[in-house]
């Protein structure tokens, strides 16, 4: 009896060690991806130049490219990837629905509508104006979905939340497409933004949304244990003495901050929030204390590399990251499903 307990304890330890090593390895890949993303693009820059751009900045064009174009862009790609993946993981944990992602909360649809309306009425086309419109739109629609979901039968059940989300998303998107159909000018101006891209973003934009993403990330990581329990089912969580309502509200705040800030800075990007949590769960299991950090790093790696690839394949122009990602990521995802999900 005692030996089996000890064995299972040892196995647990070994598993944690494995997961921790995996996390370090993923961190290393992320670091290499960041270097590559800074070095390669329309013009290639040597690693020596990159090093000097940070230690001995001399104002040459390659140093300028690194510090004002490549670095902000790469950092934003990383942040957005991490934020969306974590928001998606929490959504799927809370709703216990594999189809759930931040976009089900209407975040992307709300942001898109706000930006389209802004362009349609004000005719503005600056990225930082877009960002505030998008953030506001995302927050308003997510809060609406939550409020509507909680007035259904039985309160804020996963079912009510998803239904309210699907309804609001459809409603908002229909208004967006109505505007785009009626005004070709708006369509022309906004379509690149609507595809989701990190091109042309600068440090200022990053500093504006960074606090929101940081608060969201910290909140999410702090809640990871509670979310694991909640993902086992609401009744289980309650019988284990958890205050489910409070956890749900905090999780919602975290999701809105993460997804809202992401869509504000990079436009509606759908893939990461939906797929990365699935991939991570295949690898690390059901414990959100591991899922969330893995999601953050994987999400960052995927967005960073997709952006890099989008810059490299059609040089000197580029493809928006929101479109590159599903094209590479989805086949891999399908392969994973076939490989991992055989007899469930």
């Amino acid at each position, binding site marked *: 009896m005692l030996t089996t307990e000890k064995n299972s304890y040892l196995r647990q330890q070994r598993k944690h060690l494995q997961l921790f090593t995996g996390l370090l390895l993923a961190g290393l890949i992320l670091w290499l991806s960041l270097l590559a993303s800074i070095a390669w693009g329309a013009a290639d820059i040597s690693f020596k130049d990159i090093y000097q751009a940070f230690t001995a900045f001399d104002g040459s064009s390659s140093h300028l490219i690194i510090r004002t174009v490549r670095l902000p862009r790469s950092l934003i790609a990383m942040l957005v990837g991490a934020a969306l993946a974590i928001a998606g993981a929490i959504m799927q944990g809370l709703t216990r*629905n*594999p189809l759930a992602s931040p976009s089900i909360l209407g975040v992307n649809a709300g942001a898109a509508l706000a930006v389209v309306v802004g362009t349609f009425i004000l005719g503005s086309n600056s990225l930082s104006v877009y960002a505030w419109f998008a953030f506001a739109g995302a927050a308003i629609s997510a809060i609406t979905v939550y409020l509507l979901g909680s007035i259904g039968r039985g309160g804020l059940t996963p079912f009510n939340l998803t239904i*309210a989300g699907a309804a609001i998303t459809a*409603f908002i998107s229909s208004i967006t*497409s109505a505007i785009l159909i009626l005004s070709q000018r708006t*369509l022309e101006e906004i379509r690149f933004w609507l595809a989701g891209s990190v091109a042309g973003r600068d440090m200022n934009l990053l500093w504006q949304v960074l606090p929101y993403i940081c608060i969201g990330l910290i909140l999410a990581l702090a809640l990871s244990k509670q979310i694991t329990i909640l993902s086992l089912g609401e009744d289980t969580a309650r019988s284990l003495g958890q205050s489910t309502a409070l956890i749900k509200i905090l999780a919602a705040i975290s999701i809105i901050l993460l997804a809202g800030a992401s869509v504000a800075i990079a436009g509606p990007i759908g893939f990461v929030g939906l797929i990365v949590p699935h991939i991570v769960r295949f690898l690390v299991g059901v414990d959100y204390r591991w899922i969330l950090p893995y999601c953050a790093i994987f999400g960052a790696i995927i967005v960073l590399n997709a952006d890099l690839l989008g810059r490299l394949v059609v040089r000197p122009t580029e493809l928006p990251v929101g*479109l590159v990602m599903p*094209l590479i990521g989805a086949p891999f995802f399908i392969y994973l499903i076939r490989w991992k*999900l*055989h007899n469930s």
Partner: protein
Amino acid sequence: MTKQWLIIRPKVLPISFHCDRRVPRVLSILTLITIVAMVISVGYGEYYISPLDVIKTLLGLQTTNTDYYFVINILRLPRTLVAFLVGVGLAIAGTITQGITRNPLAAPDIIGVNAGAALAAVTLIILLPNTPVSLLPFAAFTGALTVALLIYFLAWREGSSPVRLILVGIGFSLIANALTNLMITFGEINTVSQALVWLTGSVYGRSWSQVLALIPWIVIFGAIALILARELNTLNLGDEVARGLGSPVEWQRGLLLLTSVALAGSSVATAGTVGFVSLMAPHLGRQLVGASHEGLLPVAAMMGGMLVVGADLLGRVMFAPLELPCGIITAAIGAPYFVYLLIKNRQP
């Protein structure tokens, strides 16, 4: 106490059919509303025709104005009929997918029908703008069928499972949507506008040839769906239970999926990706007559037909003379109603 079920089991015929007691009443009310909406829809337009004259013309009776015959039978009736048929097709397809996957978010989109059709149609509109419009339905249907088959085969691994089906479906929809968006983002702006109208779903300018092309699909596969309704009830209990009850689960799920793809594919091919009907009609139907599929399928179908006919009518009335595609209206009207149901349904 009234009985909940209405059972039809004639002594002479080897059939048995049972459905919720509310079905006949609900179904006839829905049919009545649909017919009224269709009559108004046919009469409404720049050239107004009173409902009475519409009915007279449709029944072949003499009216005061000889133009009526042309305007109604050639111009307006086919459009309204297409709207109705598309609604019916999408609603049944949605009911089936929700039944198979046991997921309230599942619509034919999940099995890639919309994404495949959209990709094929948008490619045709944007990359080959000179191809005749009449080829569009074929392209859309081929796209839908291809993607649906790919999903089903890739999800197959010693049997299909709802979860795997959903996940592989998501994967394929993402790829197809990304390619579609690629064209929307970089295509020539006028063709993109045109593609956008198709993507939201519209029955503008549809003619008798489209009605006649769509009818066999809806009738045949609608009938198959109705015949399989009982199996859908069993599948809904879960794979293990269904297998325990003696259902050939894989076989039935495959057949049901094919039915759903055929219905949704042909509808989408005719009118573009009219959103939300396939998601909403089954939910509305369930609110009215419960979850037993024998009754639910016809009610959901009529509901779908009513929604699209009504949406098309509203899209023409709201900003006249500008016209909004009916796909926009289905979502704009449907979503608030959905929310209302959510509120109404809560316990006091």
